[in-house]
């Protein structure tokens, strides 16, 4: 029979698996990409997909565990708040890193198609 708990558990497990897959993709990208900005993009894939999706998945799974009693709502709320925080701070942090590095002219954009902000860094 298909009841609510099973549906939640299946969706949650799917999200956790997606997060694990994204973490592997992110690690490969972090290893293989050519320049700083692309590697930063790969690491952000690991933050948003690999962490936020997995956290939401564990939150859904925690709702189905009856042994926790009323505590499961605290666990659910904690995980959702953590996910929102990681979502906000991960993106803001990677944005700050990219902007700071580009403004300080530390990393060159290489290989480069176009860099409208600072053409001298291109190539």
């Amino acid at each position, binding site marked *: 029979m298909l009841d609510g708990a099973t549906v939640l558990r299946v969706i949650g497990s799917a999200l956790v698996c997606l997060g694990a897959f994204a973490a592997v993709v992110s690690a490969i990208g972090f290893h293989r990409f050519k320049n700083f900005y692309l590697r930063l993009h790969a690491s952000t894939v690991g933050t948003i997909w690999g962490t936020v999706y997995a956290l939401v998945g564990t939150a859904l799974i925690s709702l189905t565990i009856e042994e926790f009693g009323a505590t499961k709502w605290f666990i659910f709320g904690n995980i959702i*708040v953590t996910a929102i*925080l990681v979502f*906000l*701070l991960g993106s*803001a942090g990677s*944005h*700050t890193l990219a*902007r700071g590095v580009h403004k300080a002219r530390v990393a060159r954009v290489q290989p480069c198609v176009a860099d409208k902000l600072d053409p001298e860094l291109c190539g």
Partner: protein
Amino acid sequence: MRIVEIAVIILIVLAFGLLITVAFSYIAPGTRIRPLGEFYLYATYNPYDPIVRLFTVMSPEGVTAIVWDFRGLDTLFETSVFYLAIIGALALTRGLMPAPRSEEGQGLSVIVKSVTKITAPMILAVGASVGLHGHLTPGGGFQGGSVIAVIPMLMIVIFSVLFLAKRMNVTGFLILRSIGLAIIGFTGVALFIAGLVLGVPAWVFQNMPKPGAPLSMPVEVHGALISGTLWFFNLAEMVAVASGFSIAFLILLLVKEVEFRGKS
């Protein structure tokens, strides 16, 4: 060559794993508890045992019970030392003023500023939760205050020192800090004064009833455990530490940006 490199990496990982496994059996905490620790564990929250009841703090958090009750006087003087350190820093940098026409600086991009504006109230909530639950869960006044002091630090890095310097009232924060210390001092002598008024023996820094001193701070308020003095100490310490660290961060990072006026 690649095979050699990979083999070296694998060997290093295995060696460290072996080292940690062997070392763990020596440094891992064992199950044996020393008699002193056993006493604290048994007495921290124990209204049941007729003898240990005379020493209990009625707080399930052992560390806070030790810090603010079993050795509470020591913590009081620690707080005073921190207070004096801030006073010293203020005395050294007196007459420090933002230059009247100084630019505030751009700060970081608008994305980071917006995220900071969203997360700052959340940091405040986390700090208050850590501080006010100090007698129930790990944490306490100092830890909660330190968490709250992250907010001015973030403002300094993300907006700019002068942005914060023009909006933060240092005197107000100093008054807040003094109020915190005054509450700590008053809570420490509250039962002693009550004992004087009622004509009952009582100790300075007393929390729960002791042999020969029957007065006690409230253990619960409307069914919520506050463990007598611990909750008040944590609240006041949180306010004092948060405002103290805010002043310290501002002063230390302001020195480069501003001018000294001839003010004594």
